[in-house]
């Protein structure tokens, strides 16, 4: 998804994920919000991650699970 996306393209993409009831004002909000999210992604220092760097929270099996 790029910053150059137009509102009709965004409407189509929103519909694909089930956001079919957004009106024009909501779509403008979605556009601004998505651009902000992209800026944050760009600021995330993910390039330095090594393959073995795990997420902060990981699944842990519990000894008494299912009891």
């Amino acid at each position, binding site marked *: 998804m790029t910053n150059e996306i137009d509102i009709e393209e965004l409407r189509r993409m929103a519909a694909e994920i089930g956001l079919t009831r957004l009106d024009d004002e909501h779509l403008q909000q979605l556009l601004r919000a998505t651009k*902000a999210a992209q800026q944050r992604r760009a600021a995330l220092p993910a390039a330095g991650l090594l393959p073995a760097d795990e997420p*902060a929270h990981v699944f842990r099996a519990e000894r008494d699970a299912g009891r």
Partner: protein
Amino acid sequence: MSEIAFLTVAAAAELLRGKKLSPVEYAKALIERIEHHDGRLNAFLRPAPEIALEDAHRAEAEIMRGNWRGPFHGVPYGLKDIIDYAGLPTTAHSKILERNVAGADAVVAQKLRAAGGVFMGKLSTHEFAVGGPSFDLPWPPARNPWNRGHFCGGSSSGSGAATAAGFLPAAVGSDTGGSIRNPATMCGVVGMKATYGLVSRRGVFPLAFSLDHVGPLTRTVQDNALMLDVLAGHDPLDPGSVNAATGGCTSELGRGMRGLRIGVIRHFYTRDMEGDPEMVAGIEAALKVLESLGAEVREIETAPLSEWNACNRTILASEAYAIHEKWLRERPQDYGRLARERILAGAFVRAADYINATRVRGKLARAFHALLDGVDVAVTASSMDPACRIDDPEAIERTYGRQARAPFNLTGGPALSVPVGFSGAGLPLGMQIIGKPFTEALVYRVGHAYEQATEWTRSHPVLG
């Protein structure tokens, strides 16, 4: 009236235990104050005077029989309206949940009930703890008691405003990217985001599972520690809950500052963001006070604030969107403008970006905890600016992200906001004291030593 309105929890507890103050008279005085002033502050979304009087009568009868339960017995408190109280709606300040009546107490409500607290009502919040201050919701936003034309911070906006206004001595809020500490700073009260998992989140409407914390707002550090002692505890039904004792949050109060090492994260408010000169001056003056009390102050450096904030916001938006997706599909028009836009930010975050944010979180947190090995606590800014006007959407937008709180939702350790003075316009200034996970008692010790050496938490707003 003003004397009883600004009683601390500790002072009230002494009077109540000694039968020198009646819980019923205490509750009635605060109910009257709320009825008189809250129409201009909107700190309460739903006052509950009948419940308060019922709780107060029960407390009075128990105390008169000599059955004193502890420091919260007969003490008024309020709950941010994302926290369940059995039989009352939990609306999250949103049309979406207008008719959502809680079937049971949240764990924190259970604990305050068991401690003998007097429930005063549900407090305003930003919509779903993320969208505010908003004027397009079924209820108006809370305002700052120091100047009602100004923002009181959020999202635990009513919790901060009600505590500062003398409507109650203690309130519960929640904090995902700073939502306890922001209103604490803006309203000149004390707010603690304790270690992740120390306080149960069960019965609290989630914003972002891996970042959500529940905690106390009070007018003094000692009161805050007393309240956290009530709220903390392992909850096997909260998957994030930890089975770890705090050792008593008040255990180190009064031990002073001598020999403690403080690491100042100055680059957050001087280089990464340029803090308002009055805010910076307030923090620097506070550091001088801590030094004069015997602390060793040195500068420490962590990752740039932009990296911490990007990481927090990517995780927050993704998790929040997952929670709200169904309603955003079915009834997007029922959200206020701010909540809708902030939650929609998660709609197109890729799975890889969310997972990378959680991987970055692990690295940032480990590096930060290693940094804290060289000091006892860290100090930095909370907000970069004093409260802006509440009716200036551009100023709200401009200052909303100018904060240094989000890093500590990622590290998971305790972060306490304490008042450090006032701006020239009479608006509160604040700073954060940060510790390693489970060092709440030490963080409170530092906050308490500073508080005892200054006058800030003894100043109260005059309500017009």
